[in-house]
Every structure is written in C-alpha cells, then in structure tokens.
C-alpha cells in the first residue's frame, strides 16, 4: 500500500521557471522567492518520495476549449514540456508513473469522479515551474516521477472548491489502495492572489493570502465552503487557482504538521509555498530508503 508522507502547496508562474533557467537565484528581486524553497528542496532530497501526485492547471497548452475537461489524470510514461510561445525551456521531460496513474483513474471513476484521462500531451508551467525550484538538480534528468492531475481553473464553470477538496480526499483513497509500498507527496500548484485581465488586473491582497494560508492549515473546510465568487473577490480572477491547494489539502490527514511557509509578493502574482508532513513520514524516511539500499 502506498503512503502519503506529506504535501506541498506552491505557486507556479512561468516566471519562476524562467528565473531559475536564467540563474537569478541570488538576484535581490528573486532571492526571497528561491530562499523560500530551500526547506522544500532539503526535505524532498531527504525524504526521496517515489512519486509526486501533482494537482495543477493547464493554461490552454495541453487542452483547447473545443474539448475541455474538469479533471484529467495524466497516464504518460514521460511528460514533455510544452512550448508556450517562447520555444522550449531547457528542461528534460519528467517521467510519469503510468501504473499508479491508471490505478488512480480507475479508483476515481469507481468513486464517482468523472475524470478524463490523457496521454502524450506536453505539460506546461503549471507543473514544470514548481518542479524546477523544488528539484533544482534536474539538468540531466529529474530525481523523481510525477502523476499529474489537471484541474480546470480557466473556464467557468469550474469545479467548486468543495468538489476540489473531495477530489483530494478521493485521491488519498486511491493512493492508499495502490498495492505497491511507495512514498507519495501530494502537490497543489497555482496562486496566490493575482488577476491578469480587465481594469482590475494587477490586483493583490496579502492580508487575504496570509489568511488563506492559515485557514488551509487549520480549517480547510472554511475554504471548501466558499464559492469561486468569494475567491475571485478576495484574491483576483486568477487567484481562484488556489483550489489546487485545496485538493492537495484534501489528500492530507487531519494530523499533518506544517513544517514551512514562505510568502513573497513582488510583481503581479503573490508567490507562496507551504510544506506539510504526515506523522507517518517519521517511520518511512530515510530508514525505509536505506533499507531498500537506495
């Protein structure tokens, strides 16, 4: 049986990946962002999870509006990076975990989640920006594999916040029923407050962002009971991306400990990252990994 050992919430703007590629880690405008990922990098390097299950959203790079899914599970062996108009980022493809992805798809459909499945489609910054900074040693290949779970936050109607939380809970059931003894980390990407279109473009609210981060830790049900209207009013139209964090949180137990949080508002989207660890993690790593001789 696979085990969820922790969860990560993280912003995913394209600029994060580009800044990484350009080596801006020490640049004064960017250092507060990159510093915020150091505990994540260290934790992932120490825990060496077998799989990251990533709740993210596509930005019209994998899917077009002539056939648009609400939730879509990625089944590929290998996920290549999407060309978003600037040419390809110099990052290698990241491997998938098709067996676990298929299991999750089967479990979700049986569990009355009407997901789509996809394969052989390139994936955009929704996954690759956070991967770049969480797994900085990737020039010649990523240190782990992912199962991408795409969520619609581009086109209304979007899955309700409550439904996203329930998706996380269902994904936890799926992971826990996977027969192999693997360590899994769930990741939710996107947000926090930002708005990119209309005269309200450039909107942010750090007070709300920090309240969101606090509620996500202590009382996620308050957030799950909110509407998209609430999230957009408080966090901007693209701030609704935080429903991916809610799915991640839904996949965690009630007993997780928040190990780390960073928040940095510099330009248009508020950058944030959180790290949660499950109590069970203590019994898994690094002991388990050294046991397996890795």
């Amino acid at each position: 049986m696979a085990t969820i050992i922790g969860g990560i919430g993280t912003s995913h703007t394209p600029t994060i990946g580009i800044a990484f590629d350009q080596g801006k880690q020490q640049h004064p405008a960017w250092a507060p962002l990159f510093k915020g990922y150091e505990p994540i990098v260290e934790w992932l390097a120490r825990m060496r999870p077998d799989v990251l299950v990533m709740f993210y959203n596509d930005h019209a790079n994998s899917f077009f509006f002539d056939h648009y899914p609400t939730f879509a599970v990625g089944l590929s062996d290998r996920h290549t990076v999407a060309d978003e108009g600037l040419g390809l980022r110099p990052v290698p493809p990241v491997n998938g975990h098709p067996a676990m992805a298929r299991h999750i798809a089967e479990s979700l459909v049986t569990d009355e989640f009407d997901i789509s499945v996809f394969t052989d489609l390139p994936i955009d910054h929704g996954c690759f920006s956070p991967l770049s900074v969480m797994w900085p040693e990737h020039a010649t290949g990523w240190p782990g594999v992912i199962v991408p779970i795409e969520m619609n936050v581009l086109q209304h109607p979007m899955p309700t916040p409550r439904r996203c939380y329930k998706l996380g809970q269902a994904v936890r059931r799926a992971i826990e029923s996977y027969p192999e003894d693997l360590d899994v980390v769930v990741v939710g990407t996107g947000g926090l407050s930002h708005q990119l279109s209309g005269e309200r473009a450039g909107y942010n609210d750090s007070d709300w962002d920090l309240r969101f981060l606090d509620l996500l830790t202590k009382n996620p049900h308050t957030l799950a009971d909110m509407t998209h209207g609430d999230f957009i009013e408080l966090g901007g139209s693209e701030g609704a991306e935080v429903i991916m964090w809610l799915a991640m949180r839904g996949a965690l137990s009630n007993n997780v400990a928040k190990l780390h949080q960073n928040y940095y508002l510099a330009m248009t989207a508020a950058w944030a990252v959180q790290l949660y660890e499950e109590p069970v993690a203590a019994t898994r790593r690094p002991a388990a990994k050294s046991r397996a001789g890795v």
Partner: protein
Amino acid sequence: MNPQIEKIRSLPGTFLFDLDRSARGMRLNRFLCGLVRPENRSLFKSDPEIAFENAGLTTKEREMVRTKDWKAMADYGANFFALEKLGRVTGVGNPAMCAQMRGEPLEEFLKTRRVPDAC
C-alpha cells in the same frame, strides 16, 4: 446562471471567461493558441495578414490582434492564457499586458509593484 460566480458578474474591471465568452472567442482563441507552434509563429511574424486569413478571423478580430488591444480581446472572448501566447510572440510581458488592461503606461503600473525588478 452559475451560482458559484453570480455575485461577481458585476465585479468592476473583471472579465470572467465563461462558456459564453468561450463560444464567442473560439476562433480567436484557436488562432492565439496556435502560436505555440513554431511554424505558426513564423508565419504570423512574417505575414500576419495571411495568418489571419488562414485562421478565418473577422475584421474586428484582426484589428484587435493588430493593435494588441488586450483589454478589448479579453472582453470579446479571448482567454488570458491565449493572449499570453501572443504576448510572448510579440515580446510583450504580462506586466505590460496588465498595464494596458488598466489603461496606464507600463512605468506607472510598475510603480505600483512592490519589486518592479522581478520581471
């Protein structure tokens, strides 16, 4: 009609990309999203009018693309992330797109940012 967003139908300065806008913007969004393919970018850069013709854009759609009127396109039915591709191809960053949406010069907009260097 979607209760999740009813309360902000009237939120000032916000264009929600819903199924109405999506239907209206389908042809324009298909053109914009097509710019992720290098051959489409080349054609658009070398001969935009042929690219518009191939995509079957209307006169109004062509004019909005020519003038890079982000706000008009977003209101009309372009998804922001479709617009973003045109931004990348024409060398316009998101802060400049936001500034135009707000109706202010980029320099003014950057003054409102906490760390104007982070772009």
